[in-house]
């Protein structure tokens, strides 16, 4: 029969909206408003999971995100999500869920045999068992443990949904929309503060939805609805439901996860599945409520055993009977409400067991009026049953022996309430122990937060409403608003919360039972005792040794019980034992939401030059250079290899003329009366006398004397310079210039900014470059009028630009800069002008080949360990002036023998190219330690000009070893190549070509 356990009326479900779903392949029906937990219970399904270690049958034991037991795999295919708590899954039509951690089925699980061998699986099992021999760690044990460990399995398909990260500011952030949170938000909003209210449930109201409490003369949930409607209508308030604040971070930032579309089969178009919010509040009011803790007794993990508050929530909120015959056990007043609500809903309450000798008189009267058998000084010693609880053994808490058996199919227990301190603790505060509630309460605030209501340890409804209201007004005042007096809503008297400690029940007839403390990790009271005996006697060690408090529930229901039992074992008071530090996230958060939308092609922003589209149309192969995409080479047919391309492109340049896009070089505009002096301090060379209209190659050092960056800088006017940097260091050179200018030399009257983006840079290189350019440039570029290192304003056809006679290739070359919106046009016009000359284009690969042939050092030689002397650049240094890195570069160790210096290397083996990273070794030596290496290969290519493999390398005392023969050894694949050391400039050492 469908929904056999659904009550005939009541509950916050829509009986007009039936919802179909399946669990382990079987179809069921529930209603809109159900969670997967309530819908399964409505259908009489209690067995929902197998436990982690012992594979014991488990059912749902809570009604919220603290659920330790009933975790399932939700959905199928790419959206499959393991370890989902049935209590937080909103039912939707077509929902598919499956149990996990069982084989072959939930009802018959082979691994349940672990339950029989449980004495072998005690605390510290892994540490003790998988210790020796060490050789087994990775090859044997890891595989064994991996197979046995873990619960559900994640999908291996790509996630079809997307995630977002958003930011929101407010004056007052209120976490939790229960009676305290609603009151706080309402009060703060009345004072005109900007308020954000978040709650993890689909509807506000918090505990009011689960209880039959009244506020202002009407049901609490109705009152909550009214307040929420008011808040949502105010333009200074934002309400987020299905949103869990999961982390409280430095500087008063709070992170939350909004489950935007988890309650739907598929997110609507354009909508993320989940969203991470970062909130920036001035003040935070934590109204995150409290979590009930279970009693610890024998077999307390059987399906059909749940928290007392959960049992009444299923009845009140979901109109579901979690059983027919209930036994309720408590050590405090609160569970009396469960007895009353369950009874009033038509369940038979077989017994209410109160471990205290003296119950609260008015409550006892209520119980008696309903003829519910009340037993004082009694509790549950053990439960019995196989896949469901069948009976309880009632024992005395006052020392009498003997046990009485009662039949039941539902046990609801309350061991007291723990304020939800997670966010408070994450904010840096230290919770303190409160003897009156036998739990921890917020300590002194470390950030701008306050806890109210149950989260603050005040459990009565009146305290929540009054405390929340006061805290909301106070928060607004602290934000600078004039606090408006707001009257707290009036609640009926819900009695006092009185509790006596009962941390572990006596076992009936002295028998031993499994008494679970942490159900999710199968940690028993005996494991806590064992850990203590073996010396793991602090809470932090206990946690790591037994795994208590780990996994999806993070010990929400088990932490306080565990440390109280540990305190009992140690014979210390609970405050001395302390509590583990809470760390984010409060609930499990999917990795996807941390990544946000920056995944796949959007992982990083991409920088494109103005010539990018043209390159793409020409089927260029791109290479990433920082965020830039640069054309690496241009295949002319599908068969072309990179080698074919760069050889062709290099030859075209060396023999004729070719274009290359150099827009990615850093460009910095520098102006001011002190600009020359500023450059003098940045670079090792001299800038004071550089004539206007000329460029100079410059080298910068770091403060430690190592070469930092290089490039050409041109003097455009008396006080106006134009600097270029390497592509890689463009941002950091500018930042360093700003640092020196602002922190060290603020007196220098100079300003500068990046103009990288404004200009498209095109190099025109090759012996015929002048001939090509002359067709389109409006200035005289003859060698006499525009010699090597000349700079000038020009127009290329109709495009205004700047022309630089500089060369990276070693050929006669020019660099043309045009405003970027004209960049593609300029490129096309140059190609058009060179059409009859057969102008070519080249990419970074040919660029690299030519710079190696020319012996220009670049990033692989400027590796942060080389000095100007090492790189053969020392002649440029003017040591009569001061510059960054001057002193440190003069350290004796950097000037003496044994330095790695840049050299050229020629492969002596035809057809074999050198490899980057190969060690340079004496041919007599078999390389087996790095100390035998005399240097390494830093950049390699095949040289079309020399027709052999060449390289640049850094070789010990290399400058004086030209002509020597060495071996370039690549030990990883035992490669050896004979090489000859030579001058790093392979072609045109006198520089005739560039000056032609």
């Amino acid at each position, binding site marked *: 029969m469908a929904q056999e356990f659904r009550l005939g009326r009541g509950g916050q479900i829509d009986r007009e909206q039936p919802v179909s779903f399946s669990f382990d392949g079987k179809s069921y029906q529930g209603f809109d408003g159900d969670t997967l937990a309530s819908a399964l219970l409505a259908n009489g399904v209690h067995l929902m999971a197998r436990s982690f270690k012992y594979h014991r049958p488990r059912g749902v034991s809570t009604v919220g995100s603290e659920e330790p037991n009933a975790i399932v795999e939700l959905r199928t295919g790419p959206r499959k999500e393991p370890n989902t708590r049935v209590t937080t899954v909103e039912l939707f039509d077509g929902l598919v869920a499956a149990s996990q951690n069982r084989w072959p089925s939930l009802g018959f699980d082979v691994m349940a045999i672990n339950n029989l061998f449980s004495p072998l699986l005690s605390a510290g099992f892994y540490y003790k068992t998988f210790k020796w021999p060490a050789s087994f760690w990775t090859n044997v044990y890891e595989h064994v443990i991996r197979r046995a460990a873990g619960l559900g399995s994640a999908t291996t398909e790509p996630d079809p949904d997307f995630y977002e990260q958003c930011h929101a500011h407010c004056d007052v952030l209120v976490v939790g929309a229960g009676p305290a949170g609603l009151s706080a938000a309402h009060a703060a909003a009345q004072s005109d503060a900007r308020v954000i209210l978040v709650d993890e449930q689909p509807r506000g109201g918090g505990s009011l939805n689960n209880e039959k409490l009244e506020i202002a003369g009407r049901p609490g949930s109705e009152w909550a609805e009214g307040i929420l409607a008011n808040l949502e209508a105010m333009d200074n308030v934002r309400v987020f439901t299905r949103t869990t604040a999961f982390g409280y971070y430095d500087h008063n930032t709070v992170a939350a996860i909004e489950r935007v579309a988890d309650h739907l089969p598929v997110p609507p178009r354009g909508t993320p599945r989940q969203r991470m919010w970062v909130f920036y509040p001035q003040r935070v009011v934590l109204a995150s409520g409290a979590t009930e803790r279970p009693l610890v007794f024998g077999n307390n993990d059987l399906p059909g055993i749940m928290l007392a508050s959960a049992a009444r929530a299923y009845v009140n909120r979901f109109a579901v009977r979690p059983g027919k015959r209930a036994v309720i056990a408590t050590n405090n007043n609160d569970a009396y409400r469960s007895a009353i609500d369950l009874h009033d809903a038509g369940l038979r309450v077989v017994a209410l067991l109160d471990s205290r000798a003296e119950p609260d008189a008015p409550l006892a009267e209520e119980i008696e009026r309903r003829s519910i058998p009340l037993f004082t000084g009694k509790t549950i010693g053990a439960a019995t049953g196989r896949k469901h609880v069948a009976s309880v053994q009632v024992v005395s808490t006052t020392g009498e022996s003997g046990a009485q058996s009662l039949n039941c199919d539902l046990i609801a227990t309350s061991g007291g309430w723990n304020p939800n301190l997670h966010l408070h603790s994450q904010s840096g505060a230290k919770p303190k122990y409160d003897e009156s509630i036998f739990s921890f309460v917020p300590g002194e605030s470390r950030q701008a937060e306050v806890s109210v209501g149950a989260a603050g340890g005040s459990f009565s409804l009146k305290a929540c409403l009054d405390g929340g209201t006061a805290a909301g007004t106070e928060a607004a005042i602290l934000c600078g608003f004039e606090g408006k007096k707001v009257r707290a809503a009036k609640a009926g008297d819900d009695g006092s919360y009185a509790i006596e400690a009962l941390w572990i029940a006596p076992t009936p007839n002295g028998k031993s039972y499994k008494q679970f403390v942490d159900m999710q990790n199968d940690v028993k009271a005996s494991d806590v005792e064992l850990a203590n005996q073996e010396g793991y006697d602090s809470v932090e060690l206990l946690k790591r040794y037994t795994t208590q408090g780990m996994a999806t529930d993070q010990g929400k229901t088990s932490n306080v019980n565990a440390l109280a039992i540990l305190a009992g074992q140690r014979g210390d008071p609970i405050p001395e034992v302390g509590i583990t530090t809470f760390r984010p996230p409060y609930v499990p958060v999917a990795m996807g939401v941390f990544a946000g939308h920056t995944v796949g092609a959007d992982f990083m922003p991409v920088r494109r030059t103005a010539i990018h589209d043209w390159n793409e149309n020409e089927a260029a192969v791109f290479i990433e250079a920082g965020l830039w995409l640069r054309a690496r080479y241009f295949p002319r047919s599908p068969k072309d290899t990179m080698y074919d391309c760069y050889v062709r492109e290099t030859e075209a340049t060396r023999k004729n003329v070719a274009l290359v896009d150099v827009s990615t070089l850093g460009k910095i505009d520098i102006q001011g009366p002190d600009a020359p002096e500023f450059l003098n301090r940045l670079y090792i060379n001299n800038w004071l006398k550089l004539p206007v209209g000329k460029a100079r190659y410059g080298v910068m050092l770091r403060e430690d004397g190592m070469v930092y960056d290089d490039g050409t800088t041109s003097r455009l006017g008396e006080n106006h310079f134009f600097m270029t940097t390497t592509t890689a260091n463009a941002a950091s050179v500018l930042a360093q210039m*700003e640092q020196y200018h602002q922190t060290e030399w603020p007196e220098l009257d100079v300003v500068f900014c990046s103009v990288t983006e404004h200009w498209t840079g095109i190099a025109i290189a090759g012996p015929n470059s002048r001939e090509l350019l002359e067709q389109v440039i409006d200035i005289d570029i003859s060698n006499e009028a525009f010699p090597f290192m000349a700079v000038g304003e020009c127009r290329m056809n109709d495009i205004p630009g700047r022309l630089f006679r500089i060369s990276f290739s070693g050929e006669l070359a020019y660099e043309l800069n045009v405003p970027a919106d004209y960049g593609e046009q300029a490129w096309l016009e140059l190609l058009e002008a060179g059409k009859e000359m057969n102008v070519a284009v080249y990419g970074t690969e040919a660029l690299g080949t030519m710079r190696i042939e020319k012996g220009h050092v670049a990033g692989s030689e400027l590796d942060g360990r080389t000095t100007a002397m090492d790189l053969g650049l020392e002649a440029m240094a003017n040591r009569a002036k001061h510059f960054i890195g001057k002193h440190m570069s003069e350290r004796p160790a950097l000037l003496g023998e044994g330095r790695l210096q840049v050299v050229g290397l020629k492969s002596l083996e035809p057809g074999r190219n050198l490899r980057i990273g190969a060690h340079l070794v004496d041919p007599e030596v078999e390389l087996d330690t790095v100390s035998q290496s005399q240097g390494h290969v830093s950049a390699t290519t095949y040289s079309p000009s020399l027709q052999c493999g060449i390289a640049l390398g850094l070789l010990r005392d290399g400058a004086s070893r030209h002509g020597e023969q060495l071996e370039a050894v690549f030990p990883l694949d035992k490669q050896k190549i004979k090489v000859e050391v030579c001058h790093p400039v392979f072609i045109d050492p006198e520089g005739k070509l560039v000056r032609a």
Partner: protein
Amino acid sequence: MLRIECPWCGLRNEDEFSYGSDATVTRPADDASQDDWYDYVYTRANPAGPHTEFWHHVGGCRAWLKVERDTLTHEIFSVEPASPNLPAPGKGT
């Protein structure tokens, strides 16, 4: 996450800033000894507690800032412009 109050831009997230260097060391004079230069480049106090650092508002106004920060608690006590010559926030010179 740190939030740093840029004197010009206001309170901004850490990801707009990049850490520069220890602001308690002084760059020696041009003619200082090698030892002084060595200390300046390599010797750092690494305090656990209040510390003064240079941060760059590189994702914002590009000003270099002198930030007094507690390295243990992340508390920020003060943020000032590093340069005495940049126009003061809000005034202009």
